[in-house]
């Protein structure tokens, strides 16, 4: 087990103590597992609360701050948080304008956020929820758990966060969040499995020279295993899958936001190389790239691999994307 930790049990609490030490401008509640924007209640904004299992850093705690999340609820590693956390977070950020929960579509997240929403409404809060389910690798049907929420979450949180920062009301912030989700699609590949602190060994066995296509962000294997592909081949496969799905709901040549996201252990050098191939495929297909983001944003612990997320962006989404943001992991404009 090659981990920079004290014990498997204290990983999340230790990380929160570190966030508290590194970011004095955040309210970090280690005991109750919350990261809250210090001025969350000022300005009468809609509160934006997200959360999920830990191990996807900087998501979500790294996105708390001006122009993005009001609070984040980190669960144990790869385990959705408990309703108590979301309930407390909602209480801490509500300024009377209501709260939007941004929920990645996993059974655990959905159930826990749902329970929290009911409890919050019992407390008199107005709560809306948006489900992020951008992963095209998973078949979507009424009879399954549906598509996973992955890289698209960053787009939802940034853009809805900008709308909330501008003072948009709850229903508008929720509508924008849903629009972003509906406009976003992702596809991920793994070159290695990841190791959770609790298990201490890789979650699956991936022989050298093979890769997994269509992985999620929880160390689960993908839909398919193949012989190793080049960066160019992977980009063609992944962007192809994303575009095909995206084309079902809008014009095929609309400008996109492009996120090339590292799973944790893939060097930035390789991610940029991969982005070059993604940009090439998009250009060949006549899809203009309005903005790019390359780096580790929605990770899977120490997994090697990457995902690509495209979000079809109209002028209004672009404007909100460009709006100032000041968080630990995403910052521009101030």
């Amino acid at each position, binding site marked *: 087990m090659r981990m920079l930790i004290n014990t498997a049990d204290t990983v999340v609490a230790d990380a929160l103590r570190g966030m508290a030490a590194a970011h004095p401008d955040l309210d970090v509640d280690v005991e109750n597992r919350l990261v809250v924007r210090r001025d969350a209640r000022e300005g009468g904004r809609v509160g934006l609360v997200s959360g999920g299992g830990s191990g996807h850093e900087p998501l979500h705690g790294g996105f708390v701050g001006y122009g993005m999340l009001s609070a984040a609820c980190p669960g144990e590693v790869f385990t959705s948080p408990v309703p108590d956390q979301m309930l407390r977070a909602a209480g801490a950020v509500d300024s009377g304008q209501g709260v939007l929960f941004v929920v990645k579509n996993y059974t*655990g997240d959905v*159930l826990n956020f749902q329970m929290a929403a009911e409890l919050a409404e019992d407390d008199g809060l107005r709560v809306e929820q948006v489900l992020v389910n951008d992963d095209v690798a998973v078949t979507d049907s009424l009879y399954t758990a549906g598509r996973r929420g992955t890289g698209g979450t960053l787009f939802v949180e940034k853009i809805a966060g900008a709308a909330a920062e501008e003072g948009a009301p709850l229903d508008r912030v929720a509508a924008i969040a849903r629009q972003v989700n509906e406009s976003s699609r992702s596809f991920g590949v793994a070159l290695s499995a990841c190791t959770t602190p609790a298990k201490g060994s890789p979650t699956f066995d991936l022989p050298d020279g093979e890769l997994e296509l269509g992985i999620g962000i929880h*160390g689960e*294997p993908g839909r398919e295993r193949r012989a190793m592909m080049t960066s160019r081949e992977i980009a063609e496969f992944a962007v192809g899958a994303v575009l095909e799905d995206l084309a079902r709901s809008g014009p095929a040549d609309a400008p996109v936001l492009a996120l090339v996201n590292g799973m944790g252990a893939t060097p930035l050098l390789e991610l940029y190389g991969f982005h070059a191939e993604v940009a090439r495929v998009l250009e060949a297909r006549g899809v203009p790239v309005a903005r790019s983001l390359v780096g580790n944003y929605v990770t899977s612990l120490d997994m090697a691999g990457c995902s690509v997320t495209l979000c079809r962006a109209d002028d209004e989404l672009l404007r909100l994307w460009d709006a100032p943001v000041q968080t630990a992991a995403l910052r521009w404009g101030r």
Partner: protein
Amino acid sequence: MRDADFFRRWLDAAAAAVEREADRLTELDSPIGDADHGSNLLRGFVAVRAALAGADASAPPGALLQLAGRTLISTVGGASGPLYGTLLRRTGKELGEAAEVSDEQVREALDAGVDAVARLGGAAPGDKTMLDALVPGVAALATSYADAADAADAGAVATTPMLARKGRASYLGERSIGHQDPGATSSALLLRALADAAGGAA
């Protein structure tokens, strides 16, 4: 009739089983999940033990189960936290305030609990989830606690060839086939613990 002590012994045996089998549950959750089911339940049942230890000695069965359910919801997270939490809360609610309950009442209450799990998670038997152990297990309660445990065990084993339609395993599609479901496995542990509690009291 079953008194509060019976339910304390059940939850205690369940906690012991989870402590013993946590690594195996996490191991089962690796190929078709995210390798946390054992540690999730361990965290939850350690908290349940503590909650029960702190509960009023006079608390009736229904209150104990509701407390255990609330504790699971507040400490487990993941899919299994709300599901098992709901199972125990709903079962507890059904039992009401009575200080002692009949085996028939236990069966009916658990039946309602399992129903609540099915409604909450939207799953049905055959989807490769905890319901594949819970449903046959609770049905077999009609004959005996031991039969219930055996049926749940068989139900868990029977998930291996299934294609998952709910939970994380469903993301794997065809590749989910050939692995036993971790939640069905822990459900079998819970019903075995119930049989142990009943056996010890018999």
